[in-house]
């Protein structure tokens, strides 16, 4: 990422200046010049097209062209071991926080990383992704990742008790995890609203994991032990990551 290569570049420059004498005056002048140029760049209007062009150029030179064998293989097929549900929030992309490389994780991103129950009318989008991942790609793990300061969960927790909604879609969507809100409001009534939201972020992951089992192909794979379900919570305030597994099993029928 740009911030890191900047730090590395500055460190390199400082190392050079400490090793070689006589460069200080020249370096100081040039550094001031760069700073002035960057300040000017910072105040120019944002150019979205340039941002995308330079982003792809960076990927092409630093990754794509450096790993031709990998990208040749990936071009033929993908065999990800993970299916990941993560929030659409710009701060929680699993490619960043779990360092997933191309080919590793099939990803669904939506508001509050929700998995709704099986419903061919209302939730064909998520259903299609799960069906494709489990039956066609045969992923071995499904991970549902919640996160701190989730706007969607906050929205869920803010819906008034009488159920009135003020949005076209958002509140209707987040109510997929209404059972999580009920649980938190009952069990954590003494906590602050923010603490309740944090608990709800995690409980909603559990509701989503339970909802995964409403898909017959998921149930079958979990019982056969070819698929594992996991829940997670990324806390970007404290910089921590929690992971837990969700076990489901069917025992043989008891003798008559």
């Amino acid at each position, binding site marked *: 990422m*740009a*911030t*890191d290569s900047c*730090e590395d570049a500055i460190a390199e420059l400082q190392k050079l200046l400490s090793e070689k004498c006589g460069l200080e005056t020249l370096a100081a002048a040039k550094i001031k010049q760069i700073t002035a140029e960057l300040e000017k760049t910072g105040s120019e209007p*944002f150019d*979205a*097209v340039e*941002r*995308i062009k*330079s*982003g*792809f150029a*960076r990927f092409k030179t630093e990754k*794509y062209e450096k790993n031709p064998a990998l*990208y040749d293989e990936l071009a033929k097929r*993908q065999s990800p*071991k993970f299916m990941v549900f993560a929030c*659409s*929030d*710009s*701060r929680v*992309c699993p*490619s*960043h926080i*779990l*360092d*997933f*490389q*191309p080919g590793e*994780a*099939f990803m*669904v*991103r*939506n*508001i509050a990383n929700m998995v*709704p129950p099986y419903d*061919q009318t209302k*939730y*064909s*989008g*998520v*259903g299609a*992704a799960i*069906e*494709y991942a489990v*039956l066609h790609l045969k992923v071995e*793990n499904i991970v549902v990742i919640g996160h701190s*300061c989730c706007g*969607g969960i906050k929205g869920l927790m803010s819906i008034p008790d009488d159920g009135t909604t003020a949005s*076209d*879609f958002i509140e*209707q*969507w*987040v109510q997929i995890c209404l059972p999580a809100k009920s649980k938190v409001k009952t069990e954590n009534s003494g906590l602050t609203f923010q603490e309740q939201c944090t608990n709800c972020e995690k409980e909603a992951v559990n509701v989503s994991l339970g909802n995964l089992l409403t898909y017959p192909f998921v149930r079958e794979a979990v019982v056969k032990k070819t698929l*594992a379900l*996991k829940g*997670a919570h990324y806390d*970007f305030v404290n*910089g921590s990551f929690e*992971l837990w597994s969700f076990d489901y099993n069917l025992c043989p029928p008891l003798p008559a």
Partner: protein
Amino acid sequence: MAKSSTEVAIEGLKRLLSDKEGLDDVAAVKIEKLTAELQEQDHEEEFDPVRRIKDGFIHFKTHHFDKCPAYYKKLAEEQHPKFLVFACSDSRVSPSYVLNFKPGEAFMCRNIANMVPAFNQLRYSGVGAVIEYAVKHLEVENILVIGHSRCGGIKALMSLPADGTTSNDFIDDWVKIGLPAKAKVESEWSHATFEEKCEHCEKESVDLSLVNLLSYPYVRAALANKALKLMGGYYDFVNGTFGLWKADFDIKPEIIIGSS
């Protein structure tokens, strides 16, 4: 340190070979076979998903999160992404990777074949919620819909039988959002191969999604205020290229008939 069980076993074997004559050749063959078997076992080490996730987060924490505390502290307070990006769920096309987006830059929606269906509160509340939140609340300045090469979802769309029958629970029904794109491709490129048609459809479907975005009132309002731009993209991972185009929609007053 106590000897490992393999060290003890090897010592026992060496003792036997030095005590008994004539065993060398037979022993050598057996030992070479065992070595080859063990080498193969080593390659098939079982994948540990928990380990993979743990290592991944630690990598992020040490190389990024802990290195830029001011940046992440600011992000923790608020996000102000300039982009809403629609991309396919395909594991090979993460925009964070392919377009080098940093945390905080792009609000993302990922689904099969990066589809944006038209406004429908019953059938498509998931996508609707993303658009509503991104445009009304986060006030993103750009929406980018990215298609890609060898898209399984588009292939499924192009493979749908003409009689409308479906063969799975969800996939066919979802990709049918792209039927207008398929119809355009079938009519304009009727003589192309199936693979060529799929590639055309991957791009036409992006254009269809851009049009569907207009069915959301907040998108229309932001466009009218010139506060929002729509763009289409196409990531070709076979050739290593990225195509980008803008979609301009404008409603200009022309004439009003009937008033004097």
